[in-house]
C-alpha cells in the first residue's frame, strides 16, 4: 500500500427520496506520472490511482478511469440520485494493486 493514502468524502447526511445530491471525494495520493526523473537521472516509475468508483446499495453512480494527468490528491465531484436510505461505497484502485475503500451512510426521508 502506498504511503500516506487517505480518502476524504463529503456526502449529505440526509436527503429526500429521489433528490439529486452532490458528492465530493478526494484521496491523498502522490500520483507519480512515470515521466519524472530522480536526481540520478533514473525514471521514477508510474504510481497512480487508475480507477475510482462510487456505488450506492450495489448500483453504480460513477466509474472513472484516471490517467497520470489527474493532479496529485485526485479530486472528483459528481451528483447522485438516492432512491432510498443506504450506503455509498467509494473505491480507489492503485497501480500497486492496493484498493482503498470508504463507505458513507445516508438517510432518505
Amino acid at each position, binding site marked *: 500500500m502506498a504511503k500516506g493514502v487517505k480518502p*476524504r468524502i463529503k456526502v449529505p447526511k440526509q436527503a429526500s427520496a429521489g433528490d439529486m445530491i452532490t458528492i465530493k471525494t*478526494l484521496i491523498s495520493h502522490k500520483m507519480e506520472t512515470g515521466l519524472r526523473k530522480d536526481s540520478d537521472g533514473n525514471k521514477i516509475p508510474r504510481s497512480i490511482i487508475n480507477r475510482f468508483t462510487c456505488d450506492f446499495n450495489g448500483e453504480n453512480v460513477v466509474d472513472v478511469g484516471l490517467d497520470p494527468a489527474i*493532479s*496529485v*490528491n485526485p479530486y472528483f465531484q459528481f451528483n447522485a440520485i438516492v432512491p432510498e436510505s443506504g450506503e455509498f461505497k467509494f473505491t480507489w484502485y492503485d497501480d500497486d494493486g492496493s484498493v482503498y475503500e470508504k463507505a458513507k451512510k445516508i438517510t432518505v426521508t
Partner: protein
Amino acid sequence: MSFFNKIFVGSVLLILGFSTVSLADESAKLVVEGQPMITRVKAPSHMENVDEIRSGWTFRIKETQSLQMDDFENPGMIFVDKGLDLWNKVEGSKNKACASCHDDASEFKGLRTVMPRWNESANALWSLEDHVNNCRTEQMGAEPLKWGAAPMDSLIAVISLQSRGMPMNVKIDGAVAPLWEIGKELFYTRVGQLDMACSNCHEDNYGIMIRADHLSQGQINGFPAYRLKNAKLNSIHARFKGCMKNIRATPYKVGGDEFRALELYVASRGNGLSSEAPSVRN
C-alpha cells in the same frame, strides 16, 4: 530627447498598453466555511511605505481563491487530517501523544496569531515549531521533528487552524525589539546574484506581474500554506528559503537566527490580517 523625456515615454507606454491580463480578483471577499476573514486592512503603524496590508489570497486568481473557501476543496486540509493522526499518536519514552495533555488542540486558539514571540524561560524568540519540539523532547521524551518537514508542518497546521479568522497580533517591543530590528534589516537587504531584497518585490512592486506571477506583499498570515506549485504544506522558513534561492542567494538556515528574526518582522507586517492557515497559494 532628454533623459527625463525618455523615462516619461517609457512610463506612458507602460500605462497605455500591452499590460498582461490581471489574473486576480482583487476585490473578492474571503469567507472560509462561513467565517469571514480580514484580507485587507490598514497597515500597522510601523510600516512606513505601505498604507494597506493585503493577504496573499487577494493576489490569486479566482480558481485558486475558491480552493481556500471550502475545507473540503482545500488540499491543505489533507495535511490537517494527517496532523491530527500525529496529534493522537503516542510516542517517546513517556508514552504520550500531544492529545495526552492537550485534547483536541482547541486550547491553542489564538496562539498562532502571536507567534513568533519571546519565551521567557528559554530566553529566546520562539516560533510554533519550538513549542512543538519542546513538548516532544520534554513532555513526551520523543525525538524533535524536523523544521519544514511534512510531520512538523502538519502539526503546525492543526495548531494554527484553531486561530483561523483571528487577526495576527505579533508583539514587536520589549525583549524582541532588537530581533525585530534585525529582521527588518534583512527584509531590506539585497542579496544574491540578482541582488534583490524582499522589499524590491513585496513592497515596491506588489500587485503587478513578474512574468505570470502576481507579486504579493509576501504576507505569512496564511502559513503553513498549501502551494499548488509543490502540492504540499510549506512552512514560513521553507518559503523564505525558496525565495532566496530564486534570487540566487545562499539561504539562511531553516530554524536559524536570521530566519527567526525575519519571521518576526514579516509576521508583524501582517498584524491585523486574519490568520488563514492552512491557506492555498500558487
